[in-house]
């Protein structure tokens, strides 16, 4: 249980760090990085909740995190395109 607990703590800190960056940073790219790190924190919490402690791991949260990673990259791509469009129209 120690491994999962450690990474869960890391996940919580990552989520909170990403959220703070989203609020505090001024540039678009830094906020998008914060969003991605928030997502990684959430995925960490999901996967550590699925940790089997030496036995088989619960595969449903793994599948959810896989989906989440793909959706996160497409959201990042769209956010970056939006920030490019915004720069153009300034």
């Amino acid at each position, binding site marked *: 249980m120690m491994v999962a607990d450690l990474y869960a703590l890391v996940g919580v800190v990552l989520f*909170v760090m990403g959220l703070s960056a989203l609020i505090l940073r001024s540039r678009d790219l830094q906020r998008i990085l914060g969003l991605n790190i928030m997502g990684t924190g959430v995925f960490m919490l999901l996967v550590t*909740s699925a940790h089997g402690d030496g*036995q088989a791991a*619960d*595969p449903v949260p793994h*599948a959810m995190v896989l989906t989440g990673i793909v*959706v996160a990259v*497409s959201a990042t791509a*769209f956010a970056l*395109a939006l920030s490019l469009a915004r720069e153009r129209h300034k």
Partner: protein
Amino acid sequence: MPKLIKRCLPVLVGAGAVALGALIAAAWVRTQENGGAMTRAVLEALPDSGVSNPVTAVLLNFRGFDTLLEVAVLMLTLIAVWALDLRLPRTEALPPSPVFSSLLRFSGPLLVVIAGYLLWVGASEPGGAFQAGAVLAGGCLLLRLAGRWNPGARFVRWAVSVGLLVFLLTAIAMPGLTGGLLQYPPASAGMWILLIETAATVSIAAILAALFVAREPEGPRR
């Protein structure tokens, strides 16, 4: 007044962050009391799913609709990026260099083979459509950076939509075979999953590469 808030904001956010973190950690400890609930159910149903990798079984069989919607979300993102109509000034091609061309010659075919392997082995070992699609997208982008990949609009549109098309058609065809939407007949489930995964790999690679390029491709659309 606003200036005072602006100066205190990092401290406020920091305090709020610590509070939120403690809250989430407490909630996580609570959920640990009944964790791993689905493990046994999935492992018991695994032999009927057509594959032996439990994550692939969950993605393509037990929660197949989620994956269908995910492919649709990917396509939607690409359409949204195209709709932004970014007029990007220059191409992504790098200046020609011997290091890059030898890297390309070495890793281009290797990436295609690795993608095919990941797709095939996803049935029994870690792997699957998303991983294979991402590796394939990496290969396509390497070619694009070399200036040797410039497909026309028709190819890109077909490549992007084939995954969702095959997935949807399979889902709709299933009631004729077994009576349930996206319910594979247990004998041939592995074949159906491989078919869907192959089309999905092509689409995921095309969509990820097209998201990088961000410009709508030129040429005739049909």
